[in-house]
């Protein structure tokens, strides 16, 4: 069965902390994505990676960075967390077109 696993379901961090959100897929997919989802704003693409060490900025990359050292793992990094980064974060992977999503990480920055 296809699986995208995000490291945490819920996370609470303090303002200014460096935050790592991890995502692992077991399908050998080339493409991986990080989205955030906020009420009324839908899913917004933060970063996209189409291969190891390759990345593309999405619509809202400011305040975020990513790392893809291995094909199966895509990390989202909040360099200095701020309260406006409180959100649901969703990781996804795809080979061709259909995307498979993880269960999401609800991050609260206090």
């Amino acid at each position, binding site marked *: 069965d296809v699986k995208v696993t995000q490291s945490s379901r819920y996370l609470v961090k303090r303002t200014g902390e460096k935050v790592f959100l991890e995502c692992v897929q077991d399908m050998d997919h080339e*493409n991986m994505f990080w*989205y955030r989802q906020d009420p009324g704003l*839908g*899913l*917004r693409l933060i970063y996209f990676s*189409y291969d190891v060490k390759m990345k593309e900025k999405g619509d809202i990359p400011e305040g975020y960075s990513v790392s893809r050292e291995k094909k199966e793992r895509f990390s989202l990094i909040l360099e200095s967390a701020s309260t406006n980064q409180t959100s649901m974060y969703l990781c996804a992977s795809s080979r061709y077109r259909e*995307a*498979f999503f993880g269960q*999401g990480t609800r991050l609260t920055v206090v």
Partner: protein
Amino acid sequence: SQKIEQNSEALNIQEGKTATLTCNYTNYSPAYLQWYRQDPGRGPVFLLLIRENEKEKRKERLKVTFDTTLKQSLFHITASQPADSATYLCALDIENAGNMLTFGGGTRLMVKP
């Protein structure tokens, strides 16, 4: 600017009726359009994909149309059931953008028994 619009208001229908959800877009020329279902507290799940040269696609009780002239996709659920209640998201897949998926805001569907 590029925009994908779905009806942000919830759609309430009676069990057994056909639900029709709309996805409109501007300033895109997508090669593909996808529909996903999302239940509360969960990630979206893929339902259907339609190509720009296809007018219609069906899968069981689901039907998707794609009108590239109107820049619109319609998503139909026939013989709707309470279990179909969820948020439905459309996503544009622009071939030149290397498989990047851009989502609309989603429409919440409530099917009442």
